[in-house]
């Protein structure tokens, strides 16, 4: 799997005003910069996702600031309150090498 792919699980259809759960998993090594490579003896440089923004209906609802103590392949679960029309849920992640990872999913209102 490519580094930076974001897997998201949401319910297929939600009612108006319902509070639903969102699960997400990102593929990323999250190297702390403290661990040595046992074969070469050199420290693996720091490379982590340090900021995550989550937008619903183009409005920011959650931001996460990560340190080095978040485990590899970071998992994140939270709740969102559904609006009255179909709208996208966007994930934007920034890491310390300057990469930006994005994923967008539409929430369907039944």
């Amino acid at each position, binding site marked *: 799997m490519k580094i930076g792919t974001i897997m998201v699980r949401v319910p297929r259809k939600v009612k108006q005003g319902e509070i639903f759960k969102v699960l997400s998993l990102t593929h990323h090594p999250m190297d702390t910069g*403290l661990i040595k490579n046992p074969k070469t003896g050199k420290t693996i440089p720091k490379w982590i996702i340090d900021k995550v923004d989550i937008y*619903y209906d183009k409005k920011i609802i*959650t931001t996460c600031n990560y340190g*080095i103590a978040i485990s590899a392949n*970071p*998992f994140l*679960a*939270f709740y969102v309150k559904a609006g009255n029309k179909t709208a996208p849920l966007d994930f934007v992640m920034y890491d310390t090498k300057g990469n930006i990872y994005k994923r967008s999913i539409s929430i369907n209102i039944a």
Partner: protein
Amino acid sequence: MSKKLDVTRRDFIKKAAVATAITIGVNSIVNIPKSAFAKKMTTKPKIAKIILKDVKTVNGKEVKWINHPTKEEKLFIPTVRLPLIAQNGAFVPITMEVRKPQTDKLYLKTFYIYDLNNPIPRAASFNLTPENGRAFIATRIKLQQESYVQVLAEYSNGEVYGFKKRIKVTVGGC
């Protein structure tokens, strides 16, 4: 000759046997090889002491640590789910929740996760808004050793409540 010394043959053998027994016994006690005893612990294991301090201020605001909360205060203090023993410190699941619903007037603004035994104490912070509906976050964190994990909940009116939980870690991860 035998009369002068007054030693019979039987006597001589008896005494000689006793003398040799004593010398052998003393020698064996004095010169016990060192490997017979277990080695005395000279170096302590590497695990540092658990830090019992609480985080006192966050963003210039005082943190409330309440030992015996009332019913109203229980709504504000975060409930944290952690395993008692983590077999691998690299993946420790943690969930934190506040029972109070998110309203526009008063809502949970930020969750903080602290572990003072880690090389960098603040693990993460999560900013929430009323659009979340429910103040709930689940992630996985890394832990270095047995310690207290502290979760702080900051509200929109500026109050900060804290909760901590002890966890054992068999293999460190941070």
